[in-house]
């Protein structure tokens, strides 16, 4: 009876409210995760269904457009190379199948290492205090003011050709500061909280207090910080690659853009060469942003709007 007496607006509101029963059923989060999984799936399924050997120079005619388009020379796209080919005759589809997961991998690895350093330093600074805290805090503050690209350009030119892992390691050296500061601040405030005092009264060891009492409550912050760091790391990696640094022989989205610019793709109107990698990067960032917004709403119920 109550159901029938409700207006349509009220029913809609109730439905919206019900959706909040399970905070993880957050549309932003689902879309974000979906986009990223799509890129990973492209890499995995693509390797099975498409020939990854096509990423090598000269495996196909040069500068072919995607299907349904014509290039300047009047050639139209062919089914063998549905997304066209680049100036070296490499197949674009194969390039993004190999390149997109590589770019994502660098971002995830760098962020993972950065977070681990951040958790360790943040906990040490917040929990031990004193001289340790001063040292870590000053170090983090100084590192935050240094533009990472500047240093990395120097490093990478010195290393010459690097592997993806080495590049991730170098980037990780610049993404640990903000998690360190975030965790330090949280630990400092948590140290005064009733449940940590209770744990001390219970004779808990320092490691128990850190990992069993404090860390679980930090998980939402860590997740958010991790995703933000993945974005930063990818931006940094792509930035370096577009400058022509980073791995020379392994296809990545950034390197493809670098080669396109270098070969004058912009002037020759070879839009698919630089456009497709850019589009994929944009998709990646939108996915990460949506995950971050979604996680924010999951961990902070006040952000879950009712309308």
């Amino acid at each position: 009876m109550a159901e029938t007496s409700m207006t349509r607006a009220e029913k809609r509101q109730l439905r919206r409210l019900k959706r909040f029963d399970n905070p993880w059923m957050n549309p932003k989060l689902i879309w974000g995760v979906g986009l990223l999984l799509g890129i990973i799936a492209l890499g995995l399924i693509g390797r099975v269904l498409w020939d990854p050997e096509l990423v090598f120079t000269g495996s196909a005619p040069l500068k072919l457009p995607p299907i349904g388009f014509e290039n300047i020379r009047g050639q139209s796209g062919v089914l063998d190379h549905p997304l066209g080919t680049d100036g070296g005759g490499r197949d674009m589809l194969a390039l993004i199948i190999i390149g997109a997961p590589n770019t994502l991998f660098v971002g995830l690895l760098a962020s993972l290492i950065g977070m681990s350093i951040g958790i360790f330093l943040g906990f040490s600074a917040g929990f031990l205090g004193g001289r340790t805290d001063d040292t870590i805090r000053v170090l983090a503050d100084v590192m935050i003011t240094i533009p990472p690209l500047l240093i990395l350009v120097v490093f990478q030119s010195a290393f010459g050709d690097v592997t993806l892992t080495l590049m991730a390691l170098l980037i990780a050296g610049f993404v640990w500061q903000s998690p360190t500061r975030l965790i330090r601040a949280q630990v400092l405030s948590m140290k005064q909280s009733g449940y940590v005092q209770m744990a001390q009264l219970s004779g808990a060891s320092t490691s128990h207090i850190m990992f069993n009492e404090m860390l679980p409550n930090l998980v939402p912050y860590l997740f958010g910080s991790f995703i933000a760091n993945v974005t930063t790391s990818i931006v940094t990696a792509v930035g370096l690659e577009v400058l022509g640094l980073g791995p020379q022989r392994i296809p990545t989205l950034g390197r493809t853009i670098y080669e396109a610019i270098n070969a004058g793709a912009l002037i020759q109107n070879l839009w698919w060469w630089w456009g497709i990698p850019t589009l994929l990067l944009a998709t990646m960032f939108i996915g990460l942003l949506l995950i971050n917004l979604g996680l924010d709403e999951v961990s902070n119920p006040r952000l879950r709007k009712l309308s």
Partner: protein
Amino acid sequence: MTEETLDKPVLTLRDISIEFPTPKGVVQAVKNLDLTIQKGRRVGFIGESGSGKTTTALAVMQMLAEPGRVASGSIDLAGMDVLALSEEEMRKTRLSRIAYIPQGAMNSLNPVMRVEPQMWDAIIAHEGNMDRTALKQRSDAALASVGLPAHTGELFPHELSGGMKQRVCIALGIILNPDLIIADEPTSALDVVTQRQVMQTLKDIQEQIGSGLILIGHDMGLMAQSVDELAVLKDGELVEHGTVKQIIEAPKHPYTQDLISSVPLVGGDSFLNPDRNADAPKRDSQEPLLRFENVRKDYGAVTALHPMSFALQGDTPQIISIVGQSGSGKSTMGSIMLGFNPPSQGRVLYEGQDVQKMSAAQSLEFRKNVQAVFQDPYACFNPFYRVNHALKFPFKQFGLAQSEAHTQQAMEEACAAVGLDPDLVLSRYPHQLSGGQRQRLIVARALMLSPKLLIADEPVSMVDASLRATILSNIYDLKDKYGISILYITHDLATAYHVSDYVMVLYKGHVVEAGPPKEVIGQPQHPYTQLLIDSIPWPDLERSWGDGRGEHDVEKLQAQVERASAVYRGDVAGFDLARV
């Protein structure tokens, strides 16, 4: 008064229901409330947290938090239908016709603005721009009416004390002569001495401008001393409404009876039954259980605790109360005893062993035997775990658990001992339990560990009034049935009177009066103790609260308190306080 009551009522609430849609259905915060407030009358809204008293007040100002809404009924403010007003009309009505004095005056003033301009903003927002001298005149008059000197207006909020800030908030509230003042627990953050001054100010100013007053609170004593009529709310329903006299002398609803009887009085009947007396746990050491040797604590230039020495023998269980206002050093003492806070000078000895210089094994033994109950039951549980984590973990950590089943059994027994149903509470998350349930679980935790000494730091100050007596008797049982010595730290003299064997009154880190409670609290001799006891609002209409001013020249009083030397009244066996 009689000709005023003939006037139109200031506020008429007719059949008001307020609901909050939530994922689990619509919550009815207030149900069919009918109430009329006459001009010049003071009406108290009393009830527990969640009873709908603040929600009702906020509805009158159309300031309900989203997604709350007034589902039915009408609100009539001196002939104006509040619910029909547009947002802009409502904005003009707020402050000029209804003023709201919030709970936390500390957070209600803009910290980067001086006091005066904040008052001017209020005037300009309602009456348009005007001459600066006129503004100045108005704000000075408002400050003077709450007993603050005019130069207060040129200060920043952080330069004022808590009581002064609350009075500035009152001045801000009455500056436009509203028809109705709503004061939401205006004194809950203040100590009893300041509370009396602030309440007196509020009553005076309300009489002067002849407005209606809604006083929201949970303290029956404060209500009895401050209002004309009482409205008792429970779970969103108005269960009883009448004059204070009717309600205090002949409460009809059982909940009202509970509220009145739960206020402990100095003297009068005890809410405890001190028949049994368990022996203290056997001790191997001849040394006193806890000894303070000239302990002193400084925070920078401020001395929180002046050198103090005492020894608690601990052979017979005792409750020692440490009483004082905020800033008296009593909580500092608590954290020094627990070893959380090293003393600046002197030593704290537990069975002859310095608490700050213990080996890992000794430290574990000390932790097992010295437990604590803290003030805030909301913070004491890790929100990540179910509440049984807080009980299970120390039990295992101290090697008391023989098996999983044994732990479970011990937890269930401890819960039952504090009057909780173990099946209902143990597997819940902290946020699913009320403050009272959580605090009782913390007491159950202490009980499971059977320590020799329990430090209870304001254990009931954040719990609803009707539960305080229950929790205190739970704590008292620890001494009575299980032979645990207790250090009870509190600002509440009435409870200290009932539970303790020995009372120490602290003022600015000094002991000012100490001895058995019947003497110290029953017949206080030190001016500070006398002042504290006078300032308690009694739920007794015969007993006047005093007008709270003439005698309240703070500086004179301060000088008097500081001149007087400490008074020591009689000793009890097993506790030696060094006399300074």
